[in-house]
Structure formats: C-alpha cells, structure tokens
C-alpha cells in the first residue's frame, strides 16, 4: 500500500501534468529562487525610522517613551508601573536580570511566566518601523511566555535595532542568526478582539497594555 504522502504528491503531480518530480532544470530555477529569496515590491519607506516606529506603535495602542541608556530603564519602568497603579513586581528575560532593579524599587524574577504574573519585561530582536512591530526570537534568554501571559508587557527596544520593514528584519535574522528559532513572534500592540459586533476591545488573551521603552544608546 502506498502512503498518504505518496498518494497526495502523485495527485499533485498528475494535476500539474507530470508523472515525475520537477525536471532538473526547473528544480534548479526554484532552488535558486529559494537561495536568493528576492525581496518583493515595498511601499515607500522614506521616513525617519525611530519617529515612524513610535508613531505606528502608538496607533496600535502601545505607549512609548525614550531613555538615554540601558541603565535608565529600571527607573523608567518603576515610574510607569507607579503611574498605572501596577505592582512593582515583574518577570524579566534573563538577559535583563542584572540591571539595577532593586535601586528603582522593582523586584524582578527571571523565570518562566505563570498565570499570576502581572508584568512581563522583555527585549526584542529588532523592531519594525513600517508597522510599529516588535520582533522577538525565542531562546534560553528570551522565553516567549513573558510577553504573553502577564497583563502588562514592557519591551526594551534599542533605537539602533529599529529596522524599516519586515524584509529588513528577515535580513537581520539571516545575517545574525542564520536560522529561525522555535518561536518567531511579531508583536504589534496589546492583544485585541473585535469578534462581538466588530467592536474593538483591548486585552483578549494576551496583554492589555504594551509599553515600549526606547533606548537611545
């Protein structure tokens, strides 16, 4: 008995008018296409990326602030949490555990997110100006659940990591990482739904709030 795989592929080939796999010449053309992965037409992207990112992120109902350096992040986070009457307690990506959180009055834990966690602090691999989007790549020091389970997600974004488009983000992933990690997440603002009467509600299953802290240097 042939396998479902063989049967499906055979009927696809028959449908395409062939009885065998793609000819060698055709295969070569397609392989080249995959290897070269050409970039398609993009809209005009002639704005200043940091300003554009902030503008688009705000349109997606994220909030954005800017600090001078990474060391200033804990104080900014503490001020944000106080202003929103949120607990001064957060889970963080392991890569940010060593910032001076206690000085700012925030207690952090670098572990897997749990249901009760109210605030999750992450970084990002890069951010996309065209749409105001964060890109996170999963890894030992970047667990995806941190940006998902807590009601408030705070993202630390170095200005230098803001690229123009998704194509540029892929180029950066290719050059810096080579392969995609298990989870590649594009995050564009707080989670939302409009399923009931097409009325927009923020905070469906993921965070209610996304706050972006831009780091200038």
């Amino acid at each position: 008995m042939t396998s479902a795989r063989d049967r499906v592929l055979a009927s696809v080939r028959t449908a395409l008018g062939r009885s065998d796999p793609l000819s060698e010449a055709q295969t070569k053309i397609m392989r080249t296409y995959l290897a070269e992965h050409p970039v398609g037409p993009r809209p005009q992207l002639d704005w200043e990326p940091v300003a554009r990112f902030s503008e688009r992120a705000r349109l997606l109902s994220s909030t954005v602030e800017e600090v001078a350096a990474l060391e200033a992040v804990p104080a900014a986070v503490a001020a944000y949490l106080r202003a929103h009457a949120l607990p001064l307690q957060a889970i963080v990506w392991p890569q940010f555990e060593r910032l001076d959180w206690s000085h700012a009055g925030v207690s952090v834990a670098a572990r897997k997110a749990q249901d009760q966690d109210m605030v999750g602090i992450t970084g990002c691999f890069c951010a996309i100006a065209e749409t105001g989007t964060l890109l996170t790549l999963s890894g030992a020091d970047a667990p995806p659940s941190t940006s998902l389970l807590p009601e408030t997600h705070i993202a630390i974004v170095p200005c230098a990591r803001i690229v123009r488009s998704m194509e540029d983000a892929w180029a950066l992933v290719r050059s810096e990482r080579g392969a995609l990690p298990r989870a590649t997440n594009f995050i564009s603002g707080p989670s939302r739904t409009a399923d009931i009467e097409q009325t927009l509600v923020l905070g469906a299953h993921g965070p209610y709030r996304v706050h972006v802290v831009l780091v200038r240097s």
Partner: protein
Amino acid sequence: MQISSMHFKARATQKLADPDLREALNGLKQRFVPGRAAVIAELDNFEEIREAAAEIRRRTLEHLDFFLETFERKATERGAVVHWAQTWQEANDIVLKIARDNGVRKAVKSKSMVSEECALNDALEGAGIEVVETDLGEYILQLGREPPSHIIAPVIHKTRDQVSDLFAEKHATPRKTDIGELTREARERLRPHFLQADMGITGANFVVAETGSTLIVTNEGNGRMATTLPRVHVAITGIEKVVPTLEDLATLLRLLPRSATGQSISNYVSVTTGTRGDDEIDGPQAFHIILLDAGRSRILASEFRDILRCIRCGACMNHCPVYQSVGGHAYGWVYPGPMGSVLTPNYIGLENALDLPHAATLCNQCGVVCPVKIPLPELLRKLREKQYERGLRPKRERAALRCWSFLAAHPRLYGWVTGAAARVLSWMGGDRKRIASLPFGRGWTEGRDLPAPEGETFRALYARRGAR
C-alpha cells in the same frame, strides 16, 4: 461541519427575514469595507504588491510538489513531524493518534477553518478528548453549538444581546452587556484551559518552504497561547498554503491583515519552526504538522486552479452584496461568500451545491478587492456553465436558455420577438407603466414591480438613429 449547501435558496429566504441578523451584518458595511479602504490607501503601490502576491501564489501552485517536499524536509530537519492526509477522515485519524500516543485529555484550539472542514471537534469529542475553542468568536459558537458564518469574524451573525444571554446561561453568571466585560469573562474562563491543555491545535495561514515553518496570524493571542503552553502542538493546514520564502511572506502579510480586518498588521504574527531547543524554558516538546489534500489536488487539475491562490482574507464576502444580505450560514458549509461559492461545489460536488454558483450578482466587487487577484466572477460563471452542461439546472431554465441562445443566433428573429415582447409588456403596464405580476417571472415581481418598457427597443432606436 455538516453540509447543507443544497438549501441555499430556502435558507437565504429565511435569513432575509431575520431582523437581528440584518442588524448584526451592518458591521460589514460600516467597519470592514471602509476599514480595508483606509489601510489599502497607506500603500502607494498597492496594485504592484497585489500583482506580486498573485505571482507568488501562482509560482507556488505551479511547482507545488517541489515546495511541499522542500517544506517537509526543512520542517523534519528541525524536529517537527510532517503528516500527509488525503481526506478529512485521514486528517482526523492522525490527530487522534497523536492524542492517544501523547496521553492527551484536553486540547485547546485556535481558529482553523481546515479543522472545520474535517469536523475535527466532533472526532475528538467522540474519542473522549475535551476540546476547547479559544478564539472569542469560536468560543461563543462552541457554547451555542453553532457553525461559524464568516472565515475571519465567525460570529458576525450574532448581536451583543445574544452573546449576553448565552454567557449568562452557560457560565451561570449575572448577565453582562458591556462588550469589554463579556470579553474579560471569556478570557477568565479560557485561561485555565490554556494552562491545563495537553495539546494545542492550530491552523496555519501559511507554511514556509525555505525554513519549514508554520505561521498563524491572530489578534487575540490565543494562537500564541496554543503554540506556547501545551506540551504538544498540532498544526493542520491545506497543501496549497505553502509559500517559498520569508520575503514572499512579507509581501503577502502586507495584504492579508489589510484585506481581512482593515489592519496594517495583525497583533500577532507567530512563526513556529521545529521543536524547542534544549535550553529553552517554554514551548511544546512535540510539533506535528498535517498537510491536507481533501480535494485540493483535484482543484489544481481543474479550470478552477486560481481559487487555490486564496489566502482566506474574507474581503470577497465582506464586499459581496449577497453575503451582506444573507450572512454566511445560508451558504451551508465552512466557506461562505464568493470564495465559498467556488470552493464548496469543488470540494463537496457541484450536484450538492446547486444554488451556490448563482448566489452572486457577478458585480465583480469580489474580484476587485481580492488581494491575490482571483477572478471570482469568472470562476462562478464557469461553474454555471458546468452545471448546464451536466444537466444540473432545472428543465425550465435550460429550455429558456436554449430558446434565448437560438434567438441570439438569429438577429432578425431576435429583433422581431423583442419588439413584440416590448409592445406586450408596455400594454400590460397600462397607465401606471408598471407590471405588478409577470407570468413566468412571479418570483421576481413578488417583491417589486417591473417597470414597463416604453417606446421602441434599443435595436429599433439604434437602427433609426444610426441611419441618420
């Protein structure tokens, strides 16, 4: 999902008389249509991107076996298990086997139309596995035991009041009317399911050949939950969903959320590649991908191949005057609107969906908005021709068409008959110049008067004026 596409006319009549439905469907015209127009305008080269998107889909379909095999190889290299299914039954059996092998008792699902095709929930429940829909719309439908009526906004047919009643009854909580509170209630109900589930089941908007990744586009975050928290992830999708490269994906993603919900980008675009690394603290341990044929290769072989380019954005139904009036349930199966009227007869047989190719005015709104340039009206017309050829239309209609075709091929006779008909109709119109009831056309005149023709026929007029 149970198939009842044979009864479009009867159901449509019923739906037209439902005032709640009419109110609910207003959202289409008020939000989806202008929403799409506004974000399409952000792209200065929309048509260029649209042509590129159509070309990506064409290229994929023409070399589908190659891209599927490439995808399979890459996904397998990364630790995913790729399964193939020729039928809905086979796909369900694969999911059940994965569930058994992994001791799964509870599964959470993120919206998947392919799983609706398979009636996967029934299969899981039949095997004693609890399955929870987690997309807010799908969750509401599961509570009310209803099928979806739209591929993007599955409960578009329901009003807030109906959801309030349903939640109060099923959750046994005080009735809430605020949409924010209703959403919060669903979130709180569903969170424990995410945390307890052994298996997450998702569809895939695309799968990427180059990297062996699957991808889902969601707003609520339930898709991310279902692919992050349970220990087993199963993604089930059609074989036509493959795209070659990540760059191609970027092109398609400029169009999909814009066409679907009027967003420049959806909240979450979640790309999943293989299983979790040894040092990762979250993510599933097992990742299964099911590639389903179930009629797709048959469509690939037919003159309806273009419909396989479809990226399931829903724009064609949002802009369809018929869908806007009757909603999705009238179409009787998973896929409504123009794309559904092409897909359903192809999947379940033309003889089982007789009215669907006619459930359109051929106004071409769908063709204009389709982000991958599928010539929907042309495909619907082809289906009508096929029905005629296979003798699937009523005798009287076929006789009428034969008469007309005979007349159209004999211009003199045509001129004489139409001239006579115009005189008769004009006489019937009387002083009011309107015909309240037309023999052979009662269905049409039931809801409105036919304006009676006045004066000459166009041909007579043209002949006279042309001579001058």
